[in-house]
């Protein structure tokens, strides 16, 4: 086959186009089985790889690390944009403990297990522990969403924030340990200091970039709506790049910037959120495919026992123990503790981190990479396939109504003073069975649109709200509480 341009590029696009299409199309099936979609992408990558049927020769760890970092940045950014301030308030403290002390303890305990049970050298064991110590937000929420589960707020908020906040910590530990290993230096207490410094730097710079970005977005006037997305995109890159250049945690900064932006006034908010959602998905697919290509099934076999053993150790023993201890001061119910322990899904992050020691030329890093693969697979398959069952057994789910046939959104360059709230009318909603004229809406509020089955109904005074209707209510932010009280179930966007 010819390798001259444009054929080489065309070939690459065909391969990736096909892989991405297959990944996207099969994601539905995997959701139904409770298998995290990401895992499916990873396996498709493996099948396409050199030792699979695809025969794509790829072992560029540097490229994988770069792509992984960009992808992770975009995924964390999207996660941050969608994290409401209320979740931050509720989940911040338990999540912060889980994301710092919890990550360190997890890394340490996995290391002890790897050393005691499988005889790894201490430094390798520690590195391994650090690499697999963070949970994956995307994986956790993809599984929850696709199995139609809605969690109690505080539990959901804690899980979500934890997974956004623990990647930075795991990254710092991994990078520091890798450096120590490749230079042959012993570990000292400086590591703790280093971790604190990097987190502080990442957090502070993140706040700075976040507020500066917010001011920029609200004041700048761009000629086309699409350019606002370019601006948020650039903020995401800067958020990672700038702190990292000055030894701060880039990942923490990305998350902080996105939370600050997401909770402020955004021009073309709905559009921007959509775009970043799409980018996050694209990142997921691309990242897992590439990581899948890096995995060699023959080398997997050599570390299968070790990998599965450590994977189970992490999921069944270490994670529950660490979570229980970390959450002790926060008065969670035992069911909730159990739940948070169980759904500590691992995703791409450990696999990306595992490329770093390989890049740094650490001896035995290749074996480590393949062990990590197993740990991730075990810790997404086991919780992923059981999460639905576990949620129901513990009674932590809230049932979710069907989505409406039509969605009403307002696209506006400015943030307008007013909310459009989507509601699902349940039998138990106070407004069910009453006519619109009977609903004591606050001044200035109105029912904008009614979606009944396949029909759009123009709301009139004598229109009677029926169970299973979807309605859109416009109101001022200060009247939200009353509107929610009357209408009941706010619909997820």
């Amino acid at each position, binding site marked *: 086959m010819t390798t001259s341009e444009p054929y080489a590029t065309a070939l690459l696009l065909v391969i990736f186009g096909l892989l991405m299409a297959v990944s996207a199309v099969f994601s539905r099936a995997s959701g139904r089985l409770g298998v995290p979609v990401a895992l499916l992408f990873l396996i498709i990558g493996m099948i396409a790889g050199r030792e699979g049927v695809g025969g794509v020769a790829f072992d560029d760890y540097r490229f994988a690390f770069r792509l992984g970092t960009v992808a992770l940045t975009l995924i964390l950014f999207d996660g941050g944009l969608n994290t409401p301030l209320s979740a931050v308030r509720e989940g911040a403290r338990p999540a912060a403990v889980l994301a710092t002390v919890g990550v360190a303890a997890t890394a340490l305990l996995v290391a002890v297990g790897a050393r005691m049970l499988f005889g790894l050298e201490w430094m390798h064991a520690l590195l391994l522990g650090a690499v697999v110590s963070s949970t994956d937000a995307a994986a956790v929420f993809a599984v929850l969403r696709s199995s139609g589960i809605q969690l109690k707020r505080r539990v959901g908020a804690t899980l979500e924030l934890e997974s956004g906040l623990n990647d930075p910590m795991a990254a710092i530990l991994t990078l520091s340990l890798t450096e120590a290993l490749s230079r042959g230096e012993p570990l000292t207490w400086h590591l703790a200091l280093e971790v604190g410094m990097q987190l502080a730097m990442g957090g502070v710079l993140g706040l700075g970039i976040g507020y500066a970005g917010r001011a920029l977005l609200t004041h700048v006037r761009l000629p086309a709506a699409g350019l606002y997305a370019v601006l948020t995109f650039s903020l995401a890159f800067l958020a990672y790049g700038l702190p990292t250049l000055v030894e701060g945690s880039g990942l923490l900064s990305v998350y902080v910037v996105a939370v600050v932006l997401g909770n402020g006034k955004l021009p073309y908010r709905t559009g921007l959120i959509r775009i970043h959602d799409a980018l996050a998905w694209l990142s997921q697919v691309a990242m897992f495919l590439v990581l899948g290509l890096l995995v060699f099934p023959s080398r997997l076999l050599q570390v299968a026992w070790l990998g599965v053993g450590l994977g189970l150790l992490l999921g069944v023993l270490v994670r529950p123990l660490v979570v229980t201890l970390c959450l002790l001061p926060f008065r969670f119910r035992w069911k909730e503790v159990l739940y948070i322990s169980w759904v500590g899904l691992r995703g791409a992050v450990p696999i990306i981190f595992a490329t770093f020691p390989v890049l740094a030329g650490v001896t035995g890093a290749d074996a480590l990479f393949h062990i990590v693969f197993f740990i991730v697979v075990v810790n997404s398959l086991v919780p992923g396939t059981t999460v639905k069952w576990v949620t129901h057994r513990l009674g932590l789910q809230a049932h979710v109504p069907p989505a409406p046939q039509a969605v009403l959104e307002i696209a506006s360059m400015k943030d307008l003073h007013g909310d459009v709230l989507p509601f699902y009318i349940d039998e*138990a909603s*106070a407004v069910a*069975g009453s006519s619109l004229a009977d609903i004591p809406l606050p001044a200035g509020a109105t029912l904008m649109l009614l979606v009944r089955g396949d029909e759009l109904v123009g709301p009139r005074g004598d229109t009677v709200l029926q169970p299973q209707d979807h309605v859109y209510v416009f109101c001022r932010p200060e009247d939200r509480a009353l509107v929610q009280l009357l209408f009941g179930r706010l619909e997820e966007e």
Partner: protein
Amino acid sequence: MKIAEFLSPQAVIPELTARTKAEVLRELSQALSRAHAGLRVERVVEVLQEREKLGSTGIGEGVAIPHGKLGGMVQLQASFGLSREGVDFDAIDGKPTHLFFALVAPENSAGIHLKALARISRLFKNPVFRAAILEARTAEDIYRLIAQEDAKA
């Protein structure tokens, strides 16, 4: 519409013993059935819980208005409970809830039910009123405060 028409002093609990959301709903339901013979506690708990499943009726600032509709009732009935310690009610502002106003309405009284909800939520928007209730020690004091505030608007 006056709150006294559907809230009686017997249905006011000056000190809730409940510490969880489920316990609060039960205690409020018991107060309702005490004040109005014929209301079965189990049924009331059930309708209140059905509504909570849609989203908490904790409207923030320490106030919750659990409500529901029940077949076979003649008119709107209410109970009130106070928890000085506060209960995690999944309120929309994430803060603990102290003041609970439970409301059950007949199946076909949608209009009155909604008006009562709006009225109660407006009443409890007043921070001075909320603080005064938190200071009250007896059911009679609480009842009097509510009636007074209700007479103002």
